[in-house]
């Protein structure tokens, strides 16, 4: 048995660096070399669960129907700020099929006396069917005392009691840097609140068996749900089992347990029946998180020839009622460019709106829009090519730590992207379209992000006597294709066909696995799976060596056979398996710590080509070229899909999505998929995806890091820069609506 030891590790998660202790076993192995002949890893594979997903056989949390299950429906506040005076459930309870109505008097652990946003929970109705519960929810009569509120971010910023400084960073002397500047760009950018609108709504189903709770939940982080729910209901960890088999999107909004999880768990115990509590589309838009709206001020100073002398970035993020943390909007300014003098501040601003949550590269999406727009404004002033300006300030070393990167090929992302986009066609002032009123333009923007992953993450692999393998890990596949990647990694080391590798994932009785967030799932768990497979292979070779009467060190595994180095002796693995009968070969692997001496980060560049109708302000995005560097790509097909998804989500953020709040009533006016405008298939442009082929061999034993978030980061700024290039309209507010384009054209 390999010995276990505790190591210190630094992991970057959602733009912040965390130092944690982790338990690891055995020793790590180097990444596959560039010339290694790999059969699975690095090759495009269809999703292992594709047929289930597209045929409707995949069972999601919301599909679950247990015998005797009851349905919970939350009664929500129509007031942005109020005190709950009285809840009268008489009429609701009189409705046939209603089992229970619970409010703060009967369940103080679930409800507060004061509500702070429209949609805040006040009571919950439990009924025999979803429809009965929904009908009864409307019959609950609640008396409120209205209290003063603010929902508008700018209004809240003006109120000091609502503003907290959460992060600040500096290096060098920004004031001196600006004095040394020949040119300064000083601009204010604003971004709208983006709503996740996961296809599968948030929700949970709870069932008790004595003291043991089973919770089916649509989540990105089963183990965090387990921890959170166990704490909330004062249960032991082993008494809570969380299951998330299939999952329909989270984008950061399902990184912990929800109020619905507690409702389901608490009421299922009280009523002695399983409880389902699943959000509807309106609730998805009100209460399950969002990307903060921001107000940002960026100042960039540079010399005449385009060398940055100072950079200042101050960001205010509206976190709604969430006053714990704020996303790192200033992260890109702190770490992207080589500039000696930097100062940044990040403020959290409280408003009477639904709490924000992580949303795919939280902060970096908002901050990159501001920074990379400002870079283009600077390039304009300097009459420099925007790409040349970025190259001029290229950071070879990590500007924050001074360390080398494990891999940085941003220069290749720029040059390959420029080639694919036809950047040489770009002209200052844009080019003509088919009509006099159509103008075309191109823009570029840069992506930096973490995603290196890290421990803890564990996996076991059981090799069955028939030559099939089961990978067991505490992993949830949130739709990004992690399952397939993990199966490819295991199949690679086991020299098995992909269909002989089955995954036993999606529940917390498995070895601990990380949250599917921070672009870190494959980079965290993949190396552990690989080590587990290597462990199985070692044991298998020992068995084969015995049968072949050679030393284990003299044979290797290839193409389903154990082959001896000398003499060419060959033994089919199937024969080994048939001899093993009822034995199980068990392999174990754990994720080892990240290297200390280098910084793990991913880079990329997006190029946008747009057409602007200068009479109506309509923006049509024609093409996005996305070139990313993450080291080894486990599954190129899947990786391409990931980039297309990120670009599409960014496209909505850039031109059509944005929560609309009514300042007078505090309500979200577009809490549905009709008025909240996610791009349709007709809106999605030609998306050209490429990856820099170089491996990130220092990162981990796969040689690659995560891709979940990078593709959503740079797109909005690339589009904004292309619009400015096309027609001179510099839109500093997202989304870039026709109204805003027309307004910018008038300036």
């Amino acid at each position, binding site marked *: 048995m390999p010995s276990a030891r505790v190591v210190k590790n630094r992991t970057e998660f959602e733009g912040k660096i965390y130092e944690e202790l982790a338990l690891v076993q055995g020793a790590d192995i180097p990444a596959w070399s560039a010339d290694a002949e790999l059969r699975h890893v690095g090759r495009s594979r269809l999703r292992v669960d594709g047929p289930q997903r597209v045929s409707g056989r995949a069972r999601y949390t919301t599909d679950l129907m247990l015998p005797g299950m009851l349905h919970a429906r939350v009664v929500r506040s*129509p007031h942005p700020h109020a005190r709950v005076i009285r809840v009268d459930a008489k009429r609701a309870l009189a409705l046939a099929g209603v089992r229970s109505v619970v409010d703060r008097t009967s369940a103080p652990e679930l409800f507060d006396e004061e509500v702070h946003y429209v949609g805040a929970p006040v009571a919950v109705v439990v009924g025999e069917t979803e*429809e009965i519960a*929904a*009908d009864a929810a*409307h019959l609950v009569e609640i008396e409120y005392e209205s209290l003063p509120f603010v929902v508008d971010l700018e209004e809240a910023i003006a109120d000091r009691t609502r503003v907290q400084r959460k992060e600040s960073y500096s290096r060098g002397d920004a004031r001196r840097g600006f004095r040394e500047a020949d040119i300064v760009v000083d601009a204010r950018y604003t971004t709208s609140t983006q709503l996740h609108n996961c296809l599968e709504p948030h929700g949970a189903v709870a069932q008790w068996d004595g003291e043991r709770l089973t919770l089916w939940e649509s989540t990105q982080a089963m183990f965090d749900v387990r921890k959170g729910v166990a704490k909330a209901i004062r249960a032991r960890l082993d008494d809570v089992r969380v299951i998330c088999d299939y999952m329909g999107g989270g984008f950061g909004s399902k990184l912990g347990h929800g109020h619905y999880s507690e409702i389901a768990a608490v009421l299922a115990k009280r009523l002695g029946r399983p409880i389902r509590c699943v959000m509807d589309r309106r609730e998805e838009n009100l209460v399950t998180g969002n990307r903060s709206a921001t107000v940002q001020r960026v100042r960039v100073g540079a010399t005449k020839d385009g060398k940055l002398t100072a950079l200042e970035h101050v960001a205010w993020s509206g976190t709604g009622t969430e006053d714990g943390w704020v996303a790192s909007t200033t992260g890109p300014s702190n770490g992207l460019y080589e500039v000696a003098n930097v100062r940044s501040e990040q403020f959290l601003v409280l408003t009477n709106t639904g709490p924000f949550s992580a949303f795919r590269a939280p902060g970096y999406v908002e901050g990159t829009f501001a920074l990379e727009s400002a870079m283009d404004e600077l390039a304009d002033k300097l009459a420099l090519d925007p790409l040349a300006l970025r190259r001029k300030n290229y950071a070879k070393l990590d500007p924050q730590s001074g360390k080398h990167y494990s891999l940085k090929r941003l220069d290749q992302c720029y040059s390959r992207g420029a080639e694919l986009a036809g950047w040489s066609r770009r002209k200052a002032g844009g080019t003509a379209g088919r009509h006099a*009123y159509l103008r075309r333009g191109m823009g570029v923007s840069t992506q930096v992000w973490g995603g290196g992953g890290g421990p803890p993450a564990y996996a076991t692999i059981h090799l069955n006597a028939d030559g099939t393998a089961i990978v067991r890990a505490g992993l949830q596949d949130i739709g990004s294709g992690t399952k397939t990647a993990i199966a490819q990694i295991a199949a690679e080391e086991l020299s098995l066909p992909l269909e002989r590798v089955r995954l036993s994932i999606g529940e917390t009785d498995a070895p601990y696995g990380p949250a599917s967030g921070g672009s870190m799932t494959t980079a965290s768990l993949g190396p552990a799976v690989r080590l587990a497979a290597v462990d199985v292979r070692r044991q298998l070779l020992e068995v084969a060596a015995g049968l072949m009467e050679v030393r284990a060190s003299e044979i290797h595994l290839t193409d389903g056979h154990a082959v001896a180095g000398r003499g060419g002796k060959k033994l089919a693995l199937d024969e080994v398996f048939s001899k093993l009968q009822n034995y199980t070969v068990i392999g174990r692997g754990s994720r080892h710590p990240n290297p200390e001496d280098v910084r793990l980060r991913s880079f990329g560049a997006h190029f946008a080509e747009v057409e602007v*109708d200068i*009479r*109506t*302000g*309509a923006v049509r995005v024609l093409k996005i070229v996305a070139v990313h560097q993450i080291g080894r790509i486990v599954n190129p097909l899947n990786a391409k899909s990931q980039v297309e998804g990120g670009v599409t989500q960014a496209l909505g953020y850039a*031109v*059509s999505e944005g929560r*609309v*709040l*009514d*300042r*007078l*009533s505090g*309500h979200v*006016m*577009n809490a549905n998929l*009709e*008025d909240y*405008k996610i*791009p*349709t298939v*007709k*809106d999605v442009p030609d998306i050209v995806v490429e990856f820099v082929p170089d491996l990130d061999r220092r990162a981990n034993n796969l040689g690659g890091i995560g891709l979940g978030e990078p593709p959503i980061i740079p797109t909005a700024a690339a589009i904004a820069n292309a619009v400015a290039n096309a027609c001179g309209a510099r839109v500093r507010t997202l989304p870039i*609506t*026709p*109204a805003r384009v*027309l*307004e910018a054209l008038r300036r």
Partner: protein
Amino acid sequence: MKSFSYAKVATAEEAAGLLKQRNTRLIAGGTDLLGLMKERLIEPDRLVDVNGIAQLRGITATKENFRVGALTTLAELAAHQATPLIIKEALADAATPQLRNMATVGGNLVQRNRCWYFRSAEHRCWLKGGPRCLAVDGDNRYHAIYGEGECRQVTPSDLAPALIALDATVVMRTDEGEDSLPLAQLYVAPTARHRREHAVGDDDLILAVRIGGDALRRHATYLKFMERATWQFAVVSVAASARLVEGRAQDVRIVAGAVANIPWRVKAAEDLLAGEKIDDARALAVAERFVRDARPLRDNAYKVAVLRELVRRAVLRLKD
């Protein structure tokens, strides 16, 4: 959704009888009705399903007459070979394929508006009996740029402006029997006494829409402006038609959708084109005249610019 009883009828007479009952609603495609019921904006006790009335379905077309039954779906209308081009243009961007497969012509013409204050169960707007229009001081980016009334909602239908540009008439069955009137007259800006976007009563039945021969031979076009490529109610739409006599426009109709309580025409702008050759300068002058009296709200001045441009382009397209 509140529980309701449901009856399916086979004839218009049967339907008319049942619709006289209190708090009863007709259901055809249901694409708007069910949304209103789910949001609890209406809570009928009874639904009368008219989908079984065979004679309300289908299209009859001759050289002189185009008649579409009220139960014909938008998809069927769009696909029919005799359907005028302007109608096909209007339907191409209406809603989504799924909705067009369900939604009927009759239902499309009397659908309720999309104002987000009206559609929110938690806002008691003027149209729903409240003291004032909430859009006036609220977020009014999609609201009216014309009209004097209290309510600032705008017409949602893509079909209505296109049909009005072809002088379509609507055949109805009311208390007084069968009646035919110009479609444009169906739309009446809501008043304090009649807080409704149109003159069709809950117990009236739309039987068909008819377009006469002259109008079928006009040049006509429909332009719709949205903020995404599909699946959005018009931010602004323009239907225009004219007969061209030796290159000069006659019988000019320019009908804007989504800019006022009712499909909006500006007679002076149409007159500016009547009897004239269509060229760039004329098109621009007509467009300028069309928007001259627009009175945008705080958030929707851009709609005036969009409308001006759509009118200009629509007029120019009449040349082809």
